[in-house]
C-alpha cells in the first residue's frame, strides 16, 4: 500500500525538522514496515520554470537556436533545438545536476554543462518525455510550454504538485490491522509515536431528501453486517479538483471523475471501501443483498464475465445483480459521464466470504483487500459522513434526495480489558511509568480509567476483536509505542537442571560421521515425494502409499515409503558425470500403518507412521562387498550386536535374491543389504551394479550400546599360522571359519586375507588364504601344540569341505 506524506499532513502535525526517512524508520519500529520511500522532489531537483527572453540562431547548426533563459535574477545561455520556441515561452529548464532522459528514452542521466557545436549550453529546455511529465505537455518535436501563468524560478515539482513523499508499506505487516488501511489510521499512529495532535475529520450534515423512496433489504445477514445507502441528485460528473487528483495519483490511483474519486479518497482515508451506482440503473430504487443462485454469470466493471457460485454475495436491485459485494462494481450500474443521480453505498461484509470470492475469482481489488481484513462496522457511518461531506464540498449543487438508510445487524459492544501494571511490568520486563502508559493508550484512542494499579481500558471500535481482545494485546500496544529499543535487555534466570539427553540426535551425528568420514559416503537429502511410476517400477502397490490431495507435478504425487526411490534417481543422475559414487540419506518415510503421533489431544486418531530410515547406494566394481563392509563397520563402531542372515526368500523387494542379506538385530529384521535387482535397475535405466543397504533407524537406535570395557594387554606372545586352501565354490567362508575356530580355544581369530579364483585351480573352485591367530592368556604357547592344532584343522577341512592344502 502506498501512503502519501502530504495526505498524512492533512490529519496530523509531523515535526517540521523530521526527515521522511526518519519518519519511516519510526513507523517501521513501532507500527508497520515501510519498505520503500519515494521522494518525488528528488526526481525534479534542479529543474525549474524558465522564460526565454532572447533567441538567436546558432552560428554552426541550422536546426539549433541559442536562447537566453531567465529564472528570476539568474540568466542562462541554453542551446535548444525545439521547433516551438518563442520569446516569452515559459518552459521546463533543467540545470546541471538534474536527472533527464536523453530523447525521453532509457535511464535517467545527470545533466552537465556542455558545448554544443562550439557554443556553451548551461542547461536544457526539456520536452515532456525527457523529464517524465504528463503526456498533455508533449509537443511533437518541441519543448514543454507551461503557459503564461506559472512563476519563473519555481520548482517543477511544485508546479505539478509533485512535492510529495510516498511510503510503501508491506501489506503483509498490516493483515491484522484493518484500521491501518487508510491514511487516517497511520496518522493516528504518528500522533501517538510523536505525541502530537490528531486532527478530527470534517463532517458536514446535509438535509435528507424525500423524493426518492430508497429501500435496502439484507437477505444474507450472515455476510452483510451493515449497509448504509443514500440517493444523491443534481450530480454533475466532471474531473476532480487538482488537490484530489494529486493525492490519488501520488498513491498510484488513476483519477476518473469526481464521484469515483470521492469513493476512492474515502477508502484511502479510512480504509472503508464505498461504491456509487447510477440511480437510473437501480430498478425500483431497491437494493437487495443476497447470495447468487448458482452458476450465474455476471459482468464486472472491468468488462470481464465472472462466474458466480452459491457463496458469492451480490448487491442486486429488484431484477438483477448490480455489483459483486465488496469486490467490484458491475458494468450495468456504473457511474458514467451523463449520470445525474447516484446511490452511494457504504457497507460492511463478512471478511471470510469476501476473501473466498476474491480468491476464487482471483480478483484482489483494493476493496476486497480491505474487507477481507475485517473492518469495524462503525466505520460505515463515518465513511458515509465523509462521502456526504466531500460531495458537498466538490459538488455544492448536489443534494440528498432520499433518507440516509442504515441497516445495522451488529450491536456495538464495549470491549473493556483490565490491565494491571504489575502484569505489564512482568511481560515487558521493565517498568513503564503509569503516566506514560495512559498517555500511549489514550493517544491510540483507547479510553482509560485508573483504579489504583489496575487500568480499565476500553478499546476503540476501529481496533477489531481480531486485533485487540486480550490483555496481551494491550501489552504490545504500550511496548511498541514506548519503543522496543528503550527496553533494556535482560537474560532470563533459569534452573541449572540438565536437559533431557537426546540419544537420537547424538547417534544421528555419530552415524553420519561414520558414513562420511570412515565410509567415504556423500550425504544427500531428497524430496519426500515420489511419482506413480517410481512406485510401479519397484513392483509396489500404489494403494500402500499416502497420496497428496494437491500436487504441483506428477513427480510429486505420493509420499515416499522408502528412501530407495530417490536414491536410485540420484544414481542415474550422477552416472552422467561420475563412474563411482557412494551416497546415503537419513530421512522420514511414510506408510499407512498408524504411527506414534496423535491427530489432536481429543481424538484417538493417530497419524501414519513416519519413522526414519537410513539407506545408502554404492556404485563401484564390487558393490556387495562395499555395502556389507559399510554396514558391518557402522554396526561395529556403534557396538550393535547383529547378525547378517541369508534368506533368499526375502530380499526386501528391491534386491537380487542371490545377493542379499538380512540385517538382524536382537531377533528382529531391521534391514537389508545387497545388490539391487537387475530388473529394477533396467526400469530405472541404470546399467551398472548398484549396492544398497536400508536400515529401520528407529529400531536400530534401540540397540546402539556404549558398553566398551578395557581388556588387559596380553602378557604372553601369541603365534600366527597361515593357511591357504582350495575349496569348491559352494563352501561358504562363514562355515569354514566356524569350523576352524571350533577346533581349539587357543584360536583367537581367523582372518581372511586373500580370495583367489581362476580356472587353473579346477572347475568351480577358489582359493582362500587366512591367518590363524593363537593365544593363551596364561602362558607362552609351545610350537608343538600349535602345530598339532594346525594339522587337526587341515584334516577337518579336507574331510568336511574337500579342501586341498596349497
Amino acid at each position, binding site marked *: 500500500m502506498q501512503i502519501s506524506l502530504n495526505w498524512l499532513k492533512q490529519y496530523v502535525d509531523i515535526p517540521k525538522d523530521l526527515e521522511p526517512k526518519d519518519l519511516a524508520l519510526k513507523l517501521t519500529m513501532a507500527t508497520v*514496515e515501510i519498505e520503500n520511500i519515494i521522494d518525488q522532489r528528488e526526481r525534479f531537483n534542479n529543474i525549474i520554470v524558465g522564460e526565454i527572453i532572447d533567441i538567436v540562431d546558432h552560428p554552426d547548426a541550422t536546426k539549433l537556436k541559442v536562447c537566453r533563459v531567465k529564472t528570476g535574477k539568474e540568466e542562462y545561455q541554453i542551446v535548444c533545438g525545439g521547433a516551438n520556441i518563442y520569446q516569452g515561452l515559459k518552459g521546463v529548464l533543467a540545470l546541471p545536476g538534474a536527472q533527464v532522459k536523453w530523447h525521453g528514452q532509457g535511464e535517467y542521466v545527470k545533466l552537465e554543462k556542455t558545448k554544443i557545436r562550439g557554443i556553451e549550453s548551461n542547461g536544457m529546455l526539456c520536452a515532456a518525455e525527457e523529464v517524465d511529465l504528463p503526456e498533455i505537455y508533449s509537443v511533437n518535436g518541441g519543448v514543454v510550454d507551461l503557459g503564461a501563468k506559472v512563476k519563473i524560478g519555481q520548482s517543477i515539482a511544485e508546479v505539478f504538485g509533485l512535492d510529495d513523499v510516498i511510503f510503501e508499506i508491506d501489506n503483509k505487516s498490516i493483515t491484522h490491522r484493518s484500521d491501518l488501511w487508510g491514511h487516517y489510521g497511520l496518522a493516528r499512529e504518528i500522533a501517538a509515536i510523536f505525541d502530537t495532535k490528531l486532527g478530527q475529520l470534517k463532517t458536514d450534515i446535509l438535509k435528507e431528501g424525500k423524493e426518492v423512496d430508497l429501500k435496502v433489504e439484507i437477505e444474507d445477514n450472515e455476510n452483510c453486517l451493515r449497509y448504509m445507502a443514500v440517493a444523491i441528485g443534481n450530480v454533475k460528473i466532471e474531473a476532480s479538483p487538482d488537490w484530489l487528483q494529486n493525492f490519488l495519483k501520488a498513491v498510484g490511483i488513476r483519477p476518473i471523475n469526481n464521484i469515483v474519486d470521492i469513493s476512492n479518497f474515502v477508502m484511502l482515508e479510512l480504509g472503508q471501501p464505498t461504491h456509487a451506482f447510477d440511480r437510473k440503473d437501480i430498478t425500483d430504487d431497491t437494493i437487495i443483498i443476497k447470495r447468487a443462485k448458482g452458476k450465474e454469470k455476471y459482468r464486472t466493471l472491468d468488462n470481464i464475465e465472472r462466474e458466480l457460485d452459491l457463496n458469492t454475495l451480490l448487491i442486486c436491485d429488484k431484477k438483477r445483480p448490480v455489483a459483486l459485494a465488496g469486490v467490484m462494481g458491475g458494468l450495468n450500474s456504473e457511474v458514467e459521464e451523463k449520470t445525474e443521480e447516484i446511490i452511494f453505498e457504504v457497507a460492511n461484509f463478512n471478511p471470510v466470504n469476501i476473501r473466498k470470492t476474491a480468491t476464487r475469482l482471483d480478483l484482489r481489488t483494493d476493496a476486497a483487500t480491505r474487507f477481507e481484513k475485517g473492518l469495524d462496522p462503525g466505520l460505515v457511518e463515518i465513511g458515509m459522513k465523509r462521502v456526504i461531506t466531500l460531495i458537498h464540498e466538490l459538488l455544492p449543487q448536489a443534494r440528498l434526495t432520499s433518507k440516509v438508510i442504515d441497516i445495522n445487524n451488529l450491536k456495538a459492544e464495549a470491549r473493556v480489558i483490565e490491565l494491571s501494571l504489575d502484569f505489564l511490568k512482568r511481560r515487558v520486563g521493565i517498568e513503564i511509568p503509569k503516566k506514560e502508559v495512559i498517555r500511549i493508550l489514550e493517544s491510540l484512542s483507547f479510553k482509560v480509567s485508573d483504579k489504583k494499579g489496575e487500568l480499565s481500558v476500553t478499546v476503540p471500535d476501529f481496533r477489531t476483536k481480531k486485533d485487540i481482545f486480550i490483555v496481551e494485546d494491550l501489552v504490545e500496544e504500550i511496548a511498541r509505542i514506548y519503543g522496543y529499543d528503550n527496553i533494556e535487555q535482560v537474560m532470563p534466570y*533459569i534452573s541449572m537442571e540438565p536437559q533431557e539427553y537426546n540419544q537420537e540426535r547424538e547417534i544421528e551425528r555419530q552415524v553420519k560421521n561414520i558414513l562420511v568420514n570412515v565410509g567415504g559416503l556423500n550425504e544427500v537429502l531428497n524430496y519426500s*515425494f515420489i511419482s506413480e511410476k517410481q512406485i510401479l517400477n519397484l513392483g509396489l502397490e500404489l494403494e500402500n502409499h499416502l497420496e497428496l490431495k494437491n500436487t504441483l507435478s506428477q513427480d510429486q504425487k505420493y509420499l515416499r515409503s522408502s528412501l530407495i526411490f530417490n536414491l536410485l534417481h540420484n544414481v542415474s543422475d550422477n552416472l552422467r558425470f561420475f563412474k563411482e559414487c557412494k551416497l546415503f540419506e537419513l530421512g*522420514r518415510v511414510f506408510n499407512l500403518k498408524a504411527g506414534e503421533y496423535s491427530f489432536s489431544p481429543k481424538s484417538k486418531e493417530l497419524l501414519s507412521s513416519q519413522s526414519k530410515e537410513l539407506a545408502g547406494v554404492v556404485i563401484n566394481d564390487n558393490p556387495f562387498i562395499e555395502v556389507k563392509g559399510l554396514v558391518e563397520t557402522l554396526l561395529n563402531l556403534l557396538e550393535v550386536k547383529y547378525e547378517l542372515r541369508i534368506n533368499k526368500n526375502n530380499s526386501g523387494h528391491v534386491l537380487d535374491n542371490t545377493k542379499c542379506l538380512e540385517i538382524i538385530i536382537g531377533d528382529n529384521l531391521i534391514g537389508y543389504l545387497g545388490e539391487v535387482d537387475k530388473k529394477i535397475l533396467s526400469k530405472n535405466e541404470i546399467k551398472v551394479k548398484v549396492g544398497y543397504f536400508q536400515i529401520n533407524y528407529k529400531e536400530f537406535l534401540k540397540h546402539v550400546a556404549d558398553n566398551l570395557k578395557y581388556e588387559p594387554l596380553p602378557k604372553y606372545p601369541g603365534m600366527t599360522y597361515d593357511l591357504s586352501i582350495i575349496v569348491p565354490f559352494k563352501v561358504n567362508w562363514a562355515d569354514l571359519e566356524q569350523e576352524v575356530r571350533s577346533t581349539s580355544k587357543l584360536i583367537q581369530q581367523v582372518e581372511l586375507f586373500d580370495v583367489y579364483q581362476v580356472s587353473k585351480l579346477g572347475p568351480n573352485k577358489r582359493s582362500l588364504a587366512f591367518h590363524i591367530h593363537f593365544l593363551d592368556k596364561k602362558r607362552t604357547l609351545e610350537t608343538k601344540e600349535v602345530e598339532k592344532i594346525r594339522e587337526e584343522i587341515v584334516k577337518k577341512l579336507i574331510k568336511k569341505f574337500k579342501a586341498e592344502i596349497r
Partner: protein
Amino acid sequence: MLDELKKLKEDALNEFKKVKESEELQRLETKYLGRKGELTKLLKKVRDLALEEKPRVGKFANEVKSEIAKTINDIKYELGSHEGRHEAEYFDLTLPGKKYKAGHFHPLTLVQKQLEEIFERMGFMVLEGPELESEYYNFEALNIPETHPARDTMDTYYLKNKKGWLLRTHTSNQQVRTIEKYGAPLRAVFPGRCFRYEATDASHETTFNQLEGLMIDKDISIANLIAVMKSLLREVLNKDVKVRMRPGYFPFVEPGFELDDSCLICSGKGCSVCKKSGWVELLPCGLVHPNVLRAGGLDPKVYSGFAFGLGLTRLVMMKYEIDDIRLLLSGDLRFLNQF
C-alpha cells in the same frame, strides 16, 4: 654350529669397520650375505642338525643375518653423504601426499549441527517432530482457526482421503506438542523439514528446513526475548552485528516481532540485497500467544514464553552463497562434493 656363527659375525663386523668405499662394501656384502656367501653356506648346514636343535640355531642365524644387514645399511648411509647419494636417491618433496577419501556432509547438516550446538550450550533441548501433521497442531493450536487469512498465505499440501492431514508448513507445529509432553519450564528447539505448495524457482522450494525455538517459564518478558535473540544472532552470524526488533504479526505470538540484522553485504549502507534499507529480515519471534499456552495445558497467567523461527535453508544459502535453492535437494555430487 653356534660357535661358527658367532665367529662369522665377529669377522664380518671387523671387516666392515674398515670399509671406506662403496665398491668394497658391495664386495663384502656379497661375500657374507650373497647367494653363495659365508652365511648362506652355514645356514645350509642347519638342515642336517637334530630336530630339537633346529629352532634355536635357526633363530640365532637369523639374528646374525639381520645384524650384518643393519651394519651394511648404516655404512651405506654414512658413505652416501660423501658420495653424491643425492643424485641417485633424490626425493621429490613436492609430490602430493596420500589421498584419504572422505565423503561429504550435506550443507544443511553442517549448518544445523552448528545451530544445535549453540542452542545446546544455552541449555535448549533439540527435539524432532512429525512432518506429516494434523491441521490441529499446524494451525488450530497455534491460534490460526480455519477462517484465518494466514492459512491462505501458507500454501499447504493436504493428503487425499485423510481429513485434516497435511504436510507441516512450519516447524511451529512442534510448539503445542512439546508443551503437552514436557510442560513448563521448557527450553527446546525443533529443526526440521517443512513443505509449501508453491511453484519452485531459484529462491522458492516446496521443501525447506526451519529451526523453531521455544522457551517457557514464569515471567518470561520482552526484555528476555530481546536479550536471548540478540546473543543468539551473535552466535549464529559469528560476529557482533547490529540487530533491531520491530513489530511483526504472527497469529501464535503476542506481541510479535521481526528481528532484522544489519545487512552483511553492504554493512548497513543499503544495497540491492537489503532493498536499500540497510537491514535484512532474519527471524520472526514473539511472546507465545496465551491461546497457544492454553492449547498446551498451561495457565497464561502463571507462565509466559517466547518462540522464534530460523530459516535454516536460508541460512545455508547465505553462509555458502548458494544462489539456487533447488541445488540443495538435487543430489548432484558436483554440488555436494564442495562441502
